[in-house]
């Protein structure tokens, strides 16, 4: 047995045949084949151990020894109540609860012509060719056991398809709610966004839940020429949850991806993002903040692959770690030989509020072109004692002074958000997090 994989029993593998009858697309042969194929790969790969370079700082052993069952039934009333107010009254909203679309909480009408939003289970019928191609692409990726497991057990996620030129102005709200209240469950949402030439959309994804569960979403985003996507993600999983998300983004020329991640929840979370820039003048801009306390572990791992010249990328992350929380930032920018005139910027700043908090930051540049502008930086620090004293000397108590300074630190990430309403939303989330500190 390889030490690069975690040896575990994974009882859910034994129940695969029973479980897949309840998963989307049970009668579809090609999908069943893809699921079986995923299972075979997972049996071979298992979960990566810390001997795998990219998993050096994030340990999945606790996850591997938790006995997760397939989700069974709806989410509880308390969680429903938390989901209900997300977005505005008139938002187009798709709620996926315990791996299935929740029609009562969803509102899929009101989208302009050329914009199609549906759960994966529906898209398998309505957009079969698109889904077939997507699943084949993802299965062919050089991924890890998490990706294979998602292929085997894939559940409802959202599918958003924009025809050429289709633009949707209002924010599309996607909510993932998981309820592990009656025993640990595993969720493997599969999301797909396909954008035609010159199309545009804004999506906010919110992840919430109760109890012990594992959410393992895989998202593929394919952006056509000149397409523009704003994608904001609120990760507020339960304090006992595992959240391991993978995004794969492909950008054609002139496409512009703007992402923001607010990571507040989960006992263990990893957001991995792989972007491939295939066309000139494309821009991939992501930013985020991770605010962690107690024993939370948060990992952000990115790979931006500049495969075409004249493109740009920007990554700005601000992390705040309190108590014994641990943050990981692994950011890699690759610039291929032909990708001249690439402009890539990457920054991770971490603020440690306690002696026991820890950050492991590994920025990496891999540049094969000679005419490029690339910068990366990672800093770690604690609160500025001079600033703290200045505030105290004006009558502001220590806890409030610390909150002001932490909030100022995080603000630099929020400033990256292009959209006032969305920025305000994250500001509220950050303030809520800060109100939970004891100073």
């Amino acid at each position: 047995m390889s030490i690069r994989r975690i040896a575990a029993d994974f009882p859910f593998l034994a129940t695969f045949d029973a479980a897949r009858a309840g998963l989307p697309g049970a009668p579809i042969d090609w999908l069943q084949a893809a699921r079986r194929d995923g299972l075979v790969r997972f049996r071979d790969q298992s979960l990566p151990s810390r001997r795998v370079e990219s998993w050096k700082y994030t340990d999945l052993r606790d996850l591997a020894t938790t006995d997760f069952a397939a989700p069974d039934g709806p989410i509880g009333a308390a969680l429903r109540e938390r989901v209900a107010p997300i977005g505005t009254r008139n938002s187009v909203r798709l709620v996926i609860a315990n791996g299935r679309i929740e029609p009562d909480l969803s509102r899929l009408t009101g989208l302009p012509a050329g914009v199609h939003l549906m759960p994966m289970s529906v898209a398998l019928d309505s957009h079969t060719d698109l889904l077939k191609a997507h699943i084949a692409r993802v299965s062919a990726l050089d991924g890890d056991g998490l990706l294979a497991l998602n292929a085997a057990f894939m559940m409802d996620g959202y599918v958003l398809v924009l025809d050429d030129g289709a633009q949707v102005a209002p924010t599309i709200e996607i909510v993932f709610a998981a309820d592990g209240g009656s025993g640990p469950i595993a969720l493997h949402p599969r999301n797909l966004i396909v954008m035609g030439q010159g199309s545009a959309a804004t999506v906010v994804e919110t992840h919430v839940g109760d109890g012990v569960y594992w959410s393992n979403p895989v998202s593929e985003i394919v952006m056509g020429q000149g397409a523009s996507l704003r994608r904001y993600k609120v990760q507020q999983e339960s304090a006992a949850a595992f959240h391991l998300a993978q995004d794969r983004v492909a950008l054609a020329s002139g496409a512009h991806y703007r992402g923001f991640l607010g990571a507040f929840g989960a006992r263990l979370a990893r957001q991995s993002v792989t972007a491939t820039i295939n066309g000139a003048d494309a821009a991939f801009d992501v930013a985020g903040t991770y605010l962690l306390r107690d024993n939370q572990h948060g990992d952000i791992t990115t790979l931006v692959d500049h495969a075409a010249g004249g493109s740009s990328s920007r990554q700005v992350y601000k992390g705040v770690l309190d108590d014994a929380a641990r943050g990981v930032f692994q950011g890699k920018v690759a610039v291929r030989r032909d990708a001249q005139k690439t402009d890539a910027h990457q920054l991770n700043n971490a603020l440690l509020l306690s002696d026991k908090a820890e950050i492991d930051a590994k920025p990496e540049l891999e540049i094969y072109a000679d005419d490029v502008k690339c910068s990366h930086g990672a800093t770690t620090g604690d609160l500025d004692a001079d600033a703290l004293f200045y505030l105290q000397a004006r009558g502001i108590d220590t806890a409030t002074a610390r909150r002001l300074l932490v909030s100022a630190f995080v603000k630099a990430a929020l400033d990256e958000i292009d959209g006032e309403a969305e920025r305000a939303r994250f500001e509220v989330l950050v303030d809520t997090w800060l109100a939970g500190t004891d100073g």
Partner: protein
Amino acid sequence: MTVMLEIKDLHAAVNGKEVLKGINLTINAGEVHAVMGPNGSGKSTLSYVLAGRDGYDVTQGSVMYKGADLIALAPEIRAREGIFLAFQYPVEIPGVAGTTFLKTAYNAIRKHRGEKELDAMQFLKLIREKQKQLDMTDEMVRRAVNVGFSGGEKKRYEMLQMAMLEPALAILDETDSGLDIDALKTVADGINALRDPGRAMLMITHYQRLLDYVVPDFVHVLAGGKIVRSGDKSLALDLEKEGYAVLGTAAA
């Protein structure tokens, strides 16, 4: 006459190094005291000890403020009790809006005094009034605390804060340094406007110039961590002419 501040045989260490070596100083309500002295003599250290900065440890002696032990109080409590330190080097705090900062401070102090907190509108009205007297614009007041201010602007912003917070004991650490002639007058007017029988001031300065505008009741010379000479405003004039050499070896 009520005693505002009574410092007795104060010894204090910074990072384990003794900097203040037996200071005695009594300041009554209504008085303005000027403290002068060579670089490194301990003036800022004294101001930090009074404001309660971490790492500035009193090793001997006592400081009584309004009749109670000051040293036991946390810095924010001292501020709420009416001590204000205008910093020699005001700190830039990126990301914290000046109005948020000052409103938080203002309301913390009001709350401590059992007064009603001001809402955003009331606060803006008040700050507008005060900022005018100090030649500061809305933009400067809204900006992140001290960020991008010139040296002189920082000093004026300290004075704006003082005008807003209306302290009982103001400690001004070289508030006149780096000011042009007009700004010096503006700042001096701001200080004079706050002179009041119920208020005391401790002004640290290197220059006679400020004392022409804000005439002190007493002038002290701090050298080597001790007050080596006290007098009235004429002492400042003598120093201006002769330099600290007149003090002899004690100042070296």
